[in-house]
């Protein structure tokens, strides 16, 4: 039987687990399947792309279809290639991992009305931006951003901004690409740096399907912030986005960071995801994605 809902990701993903529990509690007739990255690598694939669009037959080892034309998908896949093709030689393995990632990108590219977190050019499960890209995207979406800076050498930091770190700044290694490792500390005077201002208060607004879910304890947060968080999610094409904002003294709230694959989500967001999946079930008949009836091969 082709599943109504397909959940993609780790079996230990708290968001997938919470959504599955909520779906199970709300409907006893739904067929829900879960597939991990390893399951997909071991599946039987026929992925077709042509002038009529894309269509896929993907079946597990027992011949059961994983996804049909009316299957709604929640995609929380993280591409962890170390899990895959482990019996190949090293050269073949690297090639196979790149090839399989490319296949998944195409399979998960759409249709977006049936797939939460469809693949994008930057990520297998929605947009995967780096911290400076998020800062640029937030500014473009109309959010003020928190003071932050990153440099390749601390000697330039002194040269550029007087003595050392700016007042109120703390180290933020995540702002330095590729450098969140012990090598950071071995760089002496010429090591790269990343720093950002420390807010007095931090809130997280979660956006699901364009609807913002501010934390319940943040009644004093202006509603315009929720709108701006929604705009940011829309501008980067994120179905799910956790937006972190900070307040500095009496100043306005400022964007600090965003995560399209937050490890945890609040109840409002989990409900929003479940609602959207339930709405999608049966609404995907116009989709390009089709699958043969079970056992047709």
């Amino acid at each position, binding site marked *: 039987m082709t599943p109504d809902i397909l959940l993609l990701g780790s079996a230990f993903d708290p968001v997938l687990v919470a959504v599955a529990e909520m779906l199970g509690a709300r409907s006893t007739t739904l067929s829900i399947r879960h597939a991990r990255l390893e399951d997909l690598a071991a599946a039987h694939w026929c992925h077709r792309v042509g002038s009529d669009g894309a269509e896929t037959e993907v079946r597990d080892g027992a011949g059961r279809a994983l996804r049909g034309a009316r299957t709604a998908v929640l995609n929380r896949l993280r591409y962890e290639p170390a899990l895959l093709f482990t019996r190949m030689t090293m050269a073949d393995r690297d090639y196979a991992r790149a090839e399989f990632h490319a296949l998944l990108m195409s399979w998960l590219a759409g249709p977006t009305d049936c797939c939460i977190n469809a693949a*994008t*050019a930057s990520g297998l499960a929605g947009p995967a931006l780096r911290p400076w890209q998020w800062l640029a995207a937030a500014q473009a979406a109309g959010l003020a951003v928190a003071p932050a800076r990153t440099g390749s050498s601390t000697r330039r930091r002194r040269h550029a901004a007087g003595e050392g770190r700016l007042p109120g700044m703390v180290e933020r290694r995540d702002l330095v690409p590729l450098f969140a490792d012990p090598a950071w500390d071995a760089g002496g005077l010429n090591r790269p740096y990343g720093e950002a201002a420390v807010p007095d208060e931090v809130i997280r607004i979660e956006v699901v399907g364009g609807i913002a879910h501010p934390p319940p304890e943040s009644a004093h947060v202006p509603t315009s912030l929720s709108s701006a968080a929604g705009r940011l999610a829309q501008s980067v094409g994120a179905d799910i986005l956790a937006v972190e904002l900070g307040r500095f003294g009496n100043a306005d709230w400022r964007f600090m960071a965003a995560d399209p694959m937050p490890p945890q989500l609040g109840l409002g967001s989990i409900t929003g995801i479940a609602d959207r999946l339930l709405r999608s079930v049966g609404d995907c008949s116009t989709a390009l994605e089709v699958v043969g009836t079970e056992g047709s091969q």
Partner: protein
Amino acid sequence: MILFAGIPSEGPLALAIDSAERLGIPHLVCNQRHAEQLDIELQTGANGIGGTLWLAGAEVPLHRLSGIYARLVETAVLPEARADGRGAPDPSVRRRIVAALALLHELLDVAPCPVLNRPAAMGSNTSKPFQAQIIRRAGFAVPETLITNDPAAMLAFWRRHGRIIYKSVSGVRSIVREWSPSSGPQPHALRALPTQFQALVPGTDVRVHVVGQDCHAAEIVSDAIDYRYAVRDGLTTTMRPLTLPEQVARRCVALSCDLGLGFAGVDLRRTPSGEWFCFEVNPSPGYSYFQEESGLPISDAIVRHLAPETSRAAA
């Protein structure tokens, strides 16, 4: 001022630098091989993201750059950045080179000026069928494609189309070859990994380089399935400039724009019946081969696209 980043002797970058010099457009060259002389700072500000480059002693605020053309090679292959390479015996210097070049990548994605091309815009090319879906939506025909690990499905596809080719699914460069029972992977070998097959599309190859809103097209005449490797197979390739039908040119520009690419190499094939297929869009085209063979002024177009307003008219 234009910033050129990469290895200055590499064909496409060298031609663009030559064009800037010839057209009198101010420019800077960031040589990746001298990355130990490079420093970068990025910072947030009220007016967007700003920053500074320090390049061989010169200090350049980011807002002074009118455009960037980048042809960065992977840091891991630079001799200066390799643990066993020459020129960087001090591990801390090597680490700093890696950090500076990583930050250069970051800068390319957030710089306020036009960048050919931003690394973030290059992702679609890591999956040919993913990109094919975008190409199809732009109005081009795309070849019938099957990616499978099912030998029976592959054989059925071959019987249906008569002549098929196989090539990589990902951005890993592969030589396009025709498949037949006597050449190419044997069907049983597919079980190890889904492989991409395409119906062979007969016709003439056309390579279009899109720079901003302009198209520079070359028609390629070759007996090879993959003209890039014609010499290897003892075959020949010739090129000549071509004026594209207006609708095809418009589609090429719109497609590049959809992909976020200010500069793109679009691989087309015109069939004998006049249909235009698009195979893929290269986000970092090595255009020098096409410029040298066809005489198209692609490097001049790149430089004009990135030049400051004041220099553009003069150029």
